[in-house]
């Protein structure tokens, strides 16, 4: 069974640009979660999507947004990139809410 996949693996952008990260959940999983792991800040919850709807978001500005498609894959969009957005972005999926979450390999974003 294929795990959670994410693309791209690495990304380099400059301040002010926009970026889109992609995530495909494990087959059969309907919930998708996004997390940010920035140096010195630990793993922070960003967004939770379930059945195509945004269910919860963490303490991040509105320039962080996303969506979930009918096939349950998801995109994370970050507008007006700032230097502090440099981080590892991790996507996870679960069979449903409260269930075990499985993580993808992450996308490492560098903002110059």
């Amino acid at each position: 069974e294929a795990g959670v996949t994410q693309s791209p693996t690495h990304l380099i952008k400059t301040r002010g640009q926009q970026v889109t990260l992609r995530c495909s959940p494990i087959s059969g999983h309907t919930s998708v979660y996004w997390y940010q792991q920035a140096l010195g800040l630990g793993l922070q919850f960003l967004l939770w999507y379930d059945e195509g709807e945004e269910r919860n978001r963490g303490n991040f500005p509105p320039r962080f947004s996303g969506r979930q498609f009918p096939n349950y894959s998801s995109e994370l969009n970050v507008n007006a990139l700032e230097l502090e957005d440099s981080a590892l972005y991790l996507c996870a999926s679960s069979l449903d809410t409260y269930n075990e979450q499985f993580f993808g390999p992450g996308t490492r974003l560098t903002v110059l």
Partner: protein
Amino acid sequence: GIQVEQSPPDLILQEGANSTLRCNFSDSVNNLQWFHQNPWGQLINLFYIPSGTKQNGRLSATTVATERYSLLYISSSQTTDSGVYFCAVGFVSGGSNYKLTFGKGTLLTVNP
């Protein structure tokens, strides 16, 4: 929000030694997971353990939900066990706002 504290923050062992990592949390939780983060950043699932005890090879975990703590035991440690170990708790706030909250991790170094 819920607080998750892991101890110790750093641990250095000789190969073959045993260790215990602790995770304390400040409120009742819906689930609890232990992860090992490899050098490339991927989070590897170790245990999904909202309560009780589980074992998987040299690793075992116990969660005492009523006393709000979980323990991860590593026996006969190997150099490949090195890395960061995270505890994460799933918690519902405000009726339906669910998310995983991570501790800051324990950095384990196993020397040959």
